[in-house]
Each structure stands twice: as C-alpha cells, then as structure tokens.
C-alpha cells in the first residue's frame, strides 16, 4: 500500500505550481531560448537575474527535491563511486550524482547546461568548490560575487562598497554579456519593490509563532513558507500573491485558535512544547521527522534555517531606492555569513521573544558551515536563557545518516526532560 498523500493547503498548491513552472522554464531553455543561471539560495540575486530574463536554477533546491523524492541516496552513492569522499556535503554529491544519472529534473526532462554560474559566496566555502566542479562539467562561465564574512558581527560601509563595486564591474557586465540584455536599474527597482512587499508578509507570518497556540510551525512548515522568497520567485508578482495568500491562511488559523496543519491533514492544536530549532532539516525522512515532533506535542515557533536566505525578521528589506546597496546588505546579512556570537544572540533572543521551552539543534553530519560550533552555541544559549537545550544529528539528503530510533530517543528524552522540569521546578506551566 502506498503512503497517503500529504494534505496540502491552498498556498502549498500555489507554491507547487510556481515551482513546476520554474522547472518547466529551466528545462525548456532550448525551445524558449531563455538563458539559465545556476546559483545558490543564501545571498542569491534573483531580482538581478530577472533583469536579464535569466531563469534561476538552484542546485541546493534540486538536491532537496531529490531527497524528498527518495532519489538522493542513489545519486550520493553514484558520486561516491566516482571518488567524492563520504563526508562531503551531500547536497553536492546529490547534484553531482544526479548528473551521471541523466540529470533529470522533477518534471522528467533533463536539466540543461547552464549559461552562467552565478556564485554569490556567503559563508559556505563548499559553494566555491561545488561550482568549480560544475564549471569543469558544464564548461560555462562563472561570475563570482565575493561577500566578506561578518567576522566582527556586523558589516561596514567598506564591505558594502566592495560588493557594490563587484556588482557594477563584474556581475552586471557579466550577466549582460551572457544574456545580451542591457541592464535597466528601474526594472531592478520594480522587482525590489515586489520583494519588499512579499518580505513584509513573510515576516508577519513568521512572527505569529509568538501566538499561543502557534498557528505556524516555523521549521517544518517554515521551509514551505520561505520557499518562494528564497528561490526563483523573490521579486515576482507571484511571490507577492503567494505571501498574501499565506498571510490570510495564518490569520484564519489565529482566528480559529488553530495550530498549523500536519501532513496528515489535522490541525496541530494540542501544543505542549514550544521550541526554537537551529540547523537545516533532514529531507529524506522529512515527514517521519516532523511526525516525531507533533506526535509529542512539540511545535517549532522560530528557527534559524528559515533565515538562511535572509534575516528579514531583523528588519532588513530590499530597497528600491538603494537597489545595489540593498543587494549588498542582503548578501552580508545571510545567516550563513554570521559569526558564532551573532548566531548565539539571535537564538537566545528567539528563545525569549517566542517564549520557547528551549533550543533544539539538528546538527547536520555533512554540513560544516552550519554544524561547526553548534555545541558551543547550545551551551551558551542554555546559559543565557536558563532553558534546556538538546542536540540531535541527522543529514541533509543522505538517508544513511538518518537513524530514526536514535533521533526519536533523543527527542522524546528532551520533551520528557522539559516536562519533568516543569513538574519538578514548578516554575513554569504548560506552554499553550
């Protein structure tokens, strides 16, 4: 018997249709003549690419798609067979392995050779190596936007100017050359206006995690909420409509005192534990993983992963009045580009502001960018907030690294520990 289909809300159906259209645009480049760029989620320049009519293809998202369709395991093995080490980022191996298996997109058509690799480096060193591999494979030009790391916890004017300079001197001329389209800054301004509008609605939705019961799940649900804004749709009218629709859905749940909908189609109202989660989710066992939370009454009220492509809740908006500068600020402020103290500040703030029971870290085996220093982060957030932390380990898209019994054991221990503390300490009552 096959698994029952996940129950979808209207916004999810809308997003699904948008993604399908984008895959269609990517895979039909030979028919339409449109140019395709491969680029990454953190710090992506979607509005800029749109100015050149370039279609945006994101290898990380393709790896996630493969993970959720249970295809990534085979791709990873294929990449390892060709010599990629076991510990390397499994997004990379899923992408590389997929190529040797025909490079088929979710719509059944092959991914085309990109016309350009748009590499905006925002804290993940692997990105550079990944695109080196792709450049070897596809023999296409690479445009690199180097984003300085926020080592001191904040950006400077110098850093911003440096990025703007690169945009003016390298990226924009490069994209003009690849596409044959002349850059029009007013066009960019219009897209950025759309971005800011969608960002407002997204932030409103994410902040509703403060409501009890929470009408959203800011991790498992959150990855759907951030879908359009972090990928190929930021700046589009579609994204604006999507977030308007999402906002209405969340508002409706608040009015009915409802929690988010689970994939089983039930509203998750009986929320016993409110968590902040740090680290990406596991995609190969996504539903099973999520179920471990809602079965135990745990809702995620805020997460850092939903900030991986932009910290909009901290006040940043794309700015039509300062287009290139705001692109620079956006790249600088991505979660992966933040230093450890800033990450600690943010997570401790979430624990307090969202009145969470504690911080749960999902440490990803093959992601150095996210995982390095996470134990220290946990200890420091625990110390500052006085609320308990917990640590689980899974992987992005490698099914071999997901041990359900082990993860469940740790999660249940954590939830029971919170419960036990409430009873023993007597200082806190049940959350929602």
């Amino acid at each position, binding site marked *: 018997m096959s698994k029952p289909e996940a129950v979808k809300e209207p916004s999810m159906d809308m997003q699904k249709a948008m993604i399908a259209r984008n895959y269609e645009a990517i895979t039909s480049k030979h028919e339409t003549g449109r140019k395709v760029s491969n680029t990454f989620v953190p710090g992506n320049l979607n509005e800029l690419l749109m100015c050149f009519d370039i279609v945006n293809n994101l290898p990380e998202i393709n790896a996630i798609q493969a993970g959720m369709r249970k295809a990534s395991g085979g791709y990873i093995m294929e990449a390892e067979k060709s010599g990629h080490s076991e510990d390397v980022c499994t997004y990379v191996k899923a992408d590389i392995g997929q190529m040797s298996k025909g490079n088929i997109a979710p719509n059944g058509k092959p991914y085309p050779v990109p016309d350009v690799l748009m590499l905006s480096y925002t804290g993940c060193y692997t990105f550079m190596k990944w695109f080196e591999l792709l450049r070897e494979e596809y023999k296409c030009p690479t445009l690199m936007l180097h984003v300085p790391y926020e080592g001191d916890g904040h950006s400077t004017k110098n850093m911003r100017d440096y990025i703007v300079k690169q945009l003016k001197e390298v990226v924009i001329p490069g994209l003009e050359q690849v596409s044959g389209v002349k850059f029009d800054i007013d066009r960019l301004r219009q897209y950025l206006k759309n971005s800011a509008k969608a960002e407002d609605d997204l932030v409103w939705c994410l902040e509703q995690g403060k409501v009890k019961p929470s009408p959203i799940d800011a991790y498992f649900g959150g990855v759907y909420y951030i879908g359009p804004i972090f990928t190929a749709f930021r700046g589009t009218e579609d994204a604006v409509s999507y977030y308007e629709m999402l906002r209405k859905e969340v508002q409706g749940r608040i009015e009915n005192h409802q929690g988010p909908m689970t994939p089983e189609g039930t509203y998750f109202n009986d929320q016993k534990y409110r968590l902040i989660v740090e680290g990406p989710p596991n995609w190969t066992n996504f539903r099973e993983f999520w179920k471990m939370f809602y079965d135990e009454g745990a809702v995620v009220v805020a997460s850092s992963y939903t900030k991986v492509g932009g910290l909009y809740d901290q006040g940043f908006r794309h700015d039509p009045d300062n287009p290139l500068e705001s692109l620079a600020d956006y790249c600088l402020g991505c979660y992966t580009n933040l230093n450890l103290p800033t990450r600690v500040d943010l997570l401790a703030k979430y624990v307090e502001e969202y009145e969470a029971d504690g911080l749960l870290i999902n440490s990803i085996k093959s992601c150095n960018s996210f995982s390095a220093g996470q*134990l220290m982060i946990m*200890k420091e957030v*625990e110390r500052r907030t006085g609320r*308990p*932390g*917990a*640590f689980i*380990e899974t992987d992005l898209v490698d099914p071999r*690294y997901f*041990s359900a*019994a*082990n993860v469940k*054991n*740790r999660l*249940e*221990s954590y939830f*029971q*520990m919170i419960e*036990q*503390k409430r009873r*023993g*300490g007597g200082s806190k009552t049940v959350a929602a």
Partner: protein
Amino acid sequence: MRCFIGIDLGSTTTKAVVMDENLQILGRGITNSRSNYDTAAAVSKQEALIDTRLTLFRRALGGVPEVAGKVDDILSDLERNFRHVQFLEQLEDLQQTCIANIKGPRFAGREKTVIEALEGTFSRLRDSSAKQYAPGVKRKSDFFRDLAGAEFMSHGEAVCKEAGLGFDLILNVYDKSIIEVENRPPSGDMEGKFVRALEKGTMTGSSILAPVQSALAIPLEETYVVGTGYGRVRLPFPKEHIRSEILCHGLGAHMMYPETRTVLDIGGQDTKGIQVDPVGIVENFQMNDRCAAGCGRYLGYIADEMNMGLHELGPLAMKSNKQVRINSTCTVFAGAELRDRLALGEKREDILAGLHRAIILRAMSILSRAGGVKDQFTFTGGVAKNEAAVRELRKLIKENYGDVTINIDPDSIYTGALGGATFAVRAVVN
C-alpha cells in the same frame, strides 16, 4: 499489595524492577532480549515478581524467632527448589515442542526412533537437573537456553550413540525448538510453583510454612508499569507509561546515589552522558549517534574475535603492564585492528588494555559534550561490571576532573529499570 514496575528493554538484556509505594525495591529480574522484546519484557517482569516473593518471604520470616540466623539458608533452599520446578516445567515444554517438530522428509520412517531418543535424552536431563539445583552448586547461567543446552548435548549424544542414531538429527530438532520455547511468554502460576518448591524442600516445619504461605497469599497487584530502553516502543503500554531511557537512567542513578550529578551509562548499543539536578531531574544529556563505536557490543565483538567469554576480557586486560594504543572503537574495524596488533607481536592483554582505554576515551568525549563530570559521578550499564574499563575510567576522570566521587553499584545494570519503577510510583502516588 500495590506493585510498581519498571522494565528496561535493552538491546542485549531486559531488566525489571518491582517497587512498593514507599519506593522500596522489592525485586529485580533480568533476561536476554533474544530479539523478542515482548517475551523479554514478560520474562523479566516475572523474574522480578519472583524476586519480590522472596523479599516478602524474607520479611515474613524475619518475624519468626525460631529461624533467626537461618533465613538466608531457608530462602536459598526455597529459591533453588523454585528454580528447579521452573526448569522442569520449561523442560517439559521443550520436550513436547521437540516432538511436535519431528516432521518432514528428513524424519520419514524414523519418527518413532527419534521420539524414543528424545524421550531418553529428556529423561536423563530431568534426572541430572537435580544435581544442577543441589545445595551449594553454582549454576553457570541464569538462562534456560544455556542450562538446558549444555546438558542436552552430553545426554543426547550418549543416547543417540546407544541407539545407533545420528546425533545431528535430534540436535536439529532441538535447535529449532529451543527458539520457540524461549520466545514463548512464561507460564503464570508463580504461586503454584512456589507451593511445589515448598513441598520439595526439607524445611516444611509449621514455623516456616505458615509465614511463607501467608506471604505467598499476598496478592501482587501490578498498579503501574513503566517501560524504557530501545525496545520500549514494542511494549503494549499507553504512551504515558513509556519514559525515555535517559530520564530513567538519570532518576535511577539518583535513587541509588542521591548526590549524583553526572551519570555515564555504557550499554550494549549506546553511551549516554547525563547531568542530573539535586532531585534527579535530567538537566542535559548527550549520546552517541547511530554509530555504536565503543559501546558494550564492541567488547562482544572483541571477545568473539579472541574466542573468549565477554566476562574474561576485563581480567585479562588487568594483567597488562604495557598498554597498546588502539585508534578505532568501530565495531566493524575492531577485528582488523586487533589482528593487526597481534601480527605486530603485541600481547593479548596489552591489546585489551588499549581497547578498554579507547572505549573510555570515547565515553569521556560524550561526557564532555554533556557538560563534563561533576561530583558525584555514577557509572552504570553493563560495562560498569568490567574492572579494566572501570580502572581506565577512574584514571581519566581524575586526570580531567580531579577528585570526584565515583559510584558504581553492583546492581547498576538495573539503573534504567529502577528509574522506570520510580516513575511508576510517582505517576500514582504523587
């Protein structure tokens, strides 16, 4: 009386603890997990209830002036006879199962001869079993499989030789049947078995009989059962009766040593570092991920590789005076590294000493991830019984954390079950 039971379904052994409502331990029971958690849970629970009866007998006899100073002997006599009755009952089941399993072309035309050989073997087994349960005899194992198996081999071979029958024929039937018998839930009627044991014993004087029978008449009411351990999800309990093993180990260690702040549990499949507060509430924990490197099973592999018993590893390692450095605690690579060292001419005891150190080094890293070692520190789990592991642990704790009190209880294997039983009491009494 109201009984509160904790069952810890570990990957290797399943343990149960029975408590009364005053948090007093009444009984403990252990069995092998035998890849069948349902049976393991039932057996360990029954064993703990048997032990509970013995506790009740002890309490009853404590008030009888005539037996003062002799209670231990009386109870050991009673337990021996009880175990014998229990053994004979399972033996009967095994015989019937063996006979029922004689079918198929292999036995065609020879059924009668095979049945006769089996009956002869079991008859001798019954006779010789009295020796196993004679006063002063130390039994080699607590598990029926081990006790019946060894005797079956010797008697079966002799009977078959006399009958001119190949031994492998009945051995094949035995192998199939022992699994069935072992995986069958234990039969009830514990009280009846105790009555039969009393009748078998020599001490049937009324001064003993009456208090024992009155203790036997006390109904053991299973008020609340809490399950823990990796097999907990297999238990047919409602969700609120299931507790994570981390919490159970934390609370169990607190019950044993109320001043405990850090707990290390090295079990068959996992290692846990746990911090508890002054009332036994878990503050923080870390455990190994899906890789069971350096856990109890690793020692099992090493023992197999060296063709030794698991309990022999520690004592041999203690003989070492030159430790060999071992790099991997991976169970998969254990054999390779072991053979590598042997090939280099290292001595077995020195290699073993190195292996024990490697295990404890890994445990130290998990402890450190959980926030270090605080006074008092309690070491639990099967590996806590291994003296070489304990020696290394003491050394490394001192080097890294100074003079902290290290507690190791002889009953530490029951820590998780004890925590479970305590949760059971709290669920009802508080």
